[in-house]
C-alpha cells in the first residue's frame, strides 16, 4: 500500500485539518468532528445534516455550504459517527425551524442517528429523518436489512437542501427528500478493492481479471463476480438492473449520476456515461440533468456507480437551484 499518511490513527484528523485550511467559509470542529458553515445556522431555515463513515469524500463534508448541508459529521473510516457527534451537528444546524437528518441505510448509521435524534428531541430540537436506500444490487426482503444507501444520497442532499433554502417547512423538506429517494435507483461495479488506512490492505480479494457486480460502498460484495468484459456490456447490465427495479414512467425526466468510486479516471466515467446515455436513449428515456465525477467514493476503489432518479418538474427546479460547496458548485 502506498498512501499519503502520517499515521493511520491521525488520518481522519489530519484530513479534516487540511479540509479546514482549504475552506475558510466552513468551520471545522476537530474535537467533535463536525463540519459547519462558518457563518452559522441560517435564521428561519430548516437545517440539513448528514454524516456517515469517512472514506466516501466528498460525501458528506464536501457538501456543506450554500444550498446543501448545514452540518456534516464524519465518523471513522467506513464507520458511522457516534451519537454525540450527530447531536453536535444538529445543534449547530438548528435555527429553531428544525433539522432534517439524511441517513444512509446501513445498520450502524441507522442506530447511531436514531439515538442522536432521540437525544436532540430531548433537547427540544424538532428532527425528521430521511433514510436513503437506493441500491438495487441487494434485494429488499424480510431476511435482509434492506437496500443500501449510496449514490442517491447526493441527490437527496442537493434537492432537500434547495427546498430548505426556498423556505419549506421541516415536514416539506423531509417529504421532498423522501420523494427523491423513492424515485432513485443505483447500481455499482468494482474493478478493484479499496484500501483502508487502518488495515493497509485491500478490503477484499478480487482477481486481476474479475469484477464485483453490485458492490457496496464499503466493498461489501454484491450479486456476483464475473470476468472483466467490454464496458458496453457491463454498463448494459447495470442499467438493466436499475430499470428492472424501477423504469421511469412515460414522460418522466431523469437525473443521471455516473459516480466514480475513487480510483477511476474521469475519462472512463465519461465513457460509462456515454453508454448510459445511449442505452436510455434507445429506450426512449430522457436524461434531463447529468452529473459525472467522484461524489460518493470508497477510498481508492476503482469502479463506478450509476444512479437514475425519475424527477418531476419541482425536483428538477430544486436540482438547478444554486449550490456552493467544496464538492458541488453551480449557479452562483
Amino acid at each position, binding site marked *: 500500500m502506498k498512501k499519503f499518511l502520517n499515521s493511520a490513527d491521525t488520518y481522519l484528523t489530519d484530513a479534516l485539518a487540511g479540509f479546514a485550511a482549504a475552506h475558510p467559509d466552513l468551520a471545522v470542529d476537530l474535537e467533535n468532528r463536525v463540519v459547519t458553515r462558518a457563518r452559522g445556522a441560517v435564521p428561519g431555515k430548516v437545517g440539513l445534516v448528514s454524516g456517515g*463513515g469517512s472514506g466516501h469524500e466528498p460525501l458528506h463534508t464536501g457538501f456543506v455550504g450554500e444550498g446543501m448541508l448545514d452540518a456534516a459529521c464524519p*465518523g*471513522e*473510516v*467506513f*464507520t*458511522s*459517527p*457516534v*451519537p*454525540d457527534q450527530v447531536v453536535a451537528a444538529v445543534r449547530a444546524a438548528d435555527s429553531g425551524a428544525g433539522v432534517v437528518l439524511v441517513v444512509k441505510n*446501513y*445498520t*450502524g448509521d441507522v*442506530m*447511531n442517528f436514531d*439515538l442522536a435524534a432521540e437525544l436532540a428531541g430531548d433537547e427540544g430540537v424538532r428532527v425528521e429523518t430521511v433514510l436513503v436506500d437506493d441500491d438495487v444490487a*441487494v434485494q429488499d426482503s424480510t*431476511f*435482509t*436489512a434492506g437496500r*443500501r444507501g449510496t449514490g442517491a444520497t447526493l441527490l437527496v442532499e442537493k434537492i432537500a437542501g434547495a427546498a430548505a433554502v426556498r423556505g419549506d417547512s421541516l415536514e416539506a423538506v423531509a417529504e421532498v427528500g423522501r420523494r427523491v429517494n423513492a424515485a432513485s435507483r443505483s447500481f455499482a461495479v468494482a474493478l478493484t478493492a479499496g484500501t*483502508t488506512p*487502518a*488495515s493497509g490492505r485491500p*478490503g*477484499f480479494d478480487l482477481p486481476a481479471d474479475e469484477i464485483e457486480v453490485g458492490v*457496496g460502498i*464499503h*466493498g*461489501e*460484495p*454484491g450479486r456476483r463476480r464475473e470476468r472483466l468484459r467490454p464496458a458496453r456490456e457491463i454498463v448494459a447490465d447495470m442499467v438493466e438492473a436499475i430499470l428492472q427495479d424501477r423504469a421511469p414512467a412515460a414522460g418522466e425526466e431523469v437525473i443521471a449520476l455516473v459516480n466514480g468510486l475513487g480510483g477511476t479516471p474521469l475519462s472512463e466515467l465519461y465513457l460509462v456515461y456515454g453508454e448510459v446515455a445511449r442505452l436510455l436513449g434507445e429506450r426512449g428515456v430522457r436524461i434531463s440533468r447529468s452529473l459525472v465525477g467522484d461524489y460518493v467514493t470508497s477510498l481508492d476503489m476503482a469502479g463506478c456507480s450509476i444512479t437514475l432518479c425519475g424527477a418531476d418538474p419541482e425536483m428538477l427546479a430544486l436540482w438547478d437551484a444554486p449550490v456552493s460547496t467544496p464538492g458541488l458548485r453551480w449557479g452562483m
Partner: protein
Amino acid sequence: MDIELARAWVRAVAVAVEKNREHLSDLDAAIGDGDHGANLNRGFAAAAEAVEALQPETVGAVLVKAGTTLVSKVGGASGPLYGSALRAAGKRLTGASADPAEVAAALAAGLEEVRRLGGAQPGDKTMVDAYTPAVEAFTAAAERGAALAEAAQAAATAAEDGARATEPLQARKGRASYLGERSKGHEDPGAASTALVFRALADTAAAAG
C-alpha cells in the same frame, strides 16, 4: 460480583480485544469491511480508562459507564449494540454487589436490548448467536446454585460454541447480510467478540475466586 470485579472484567475485555484485534478484523474482512477489531479496541480501551477513574457505589454504575463510553467512542453497529447491552445490564445491578442470579438477570436484560436494537434472532449470524447460549448457560448454572466463577465458565464455553456455530450460517442481519450465500463459511466477528467478553468474565471471576 462486586464493584472491583466489574471493573476488572471491563479491563480484561480491553486486554482481550487488544490481543485479538487482528483476528477480529480478519473475520470482519471476510464478511464486512475489516474494522471490527480496531473499532472495539478503541472503544474498550476508552471504557477501561473511564471505569478506572470512576468511584462507583454500585456494580451497575461500572457497566453503565463502560456502555456509555462505548456508545460515544465506537460508532458503527457495534458501538450502540455493545454499549446498550452493558447499559441495560448495569441498570439492573443497583447494589454494591450482585449474586449470580442477579448477574444472570442483568445479562439477560442486555441481550434483550441487543435483540431489540438490532432486530436479530438466533441463527441470523450475529453476536446474538453467542450471547443467547451464554445467557442460557449462565442462568441455568445460577439456578443450580453455582458460584459466579462456575456460571461464568459455563457461559464462556457456550458463547465460544455459539460463535463457532455461526461459521456455516448465512447472514440475515447487518452489513454481512448483503453477502447472502457468500457469508457462509466465516465465523461472525460480532459473535467472536461476544465470546471474548464472556471468556474475560470467566477468567476474571476465576481469578477473584
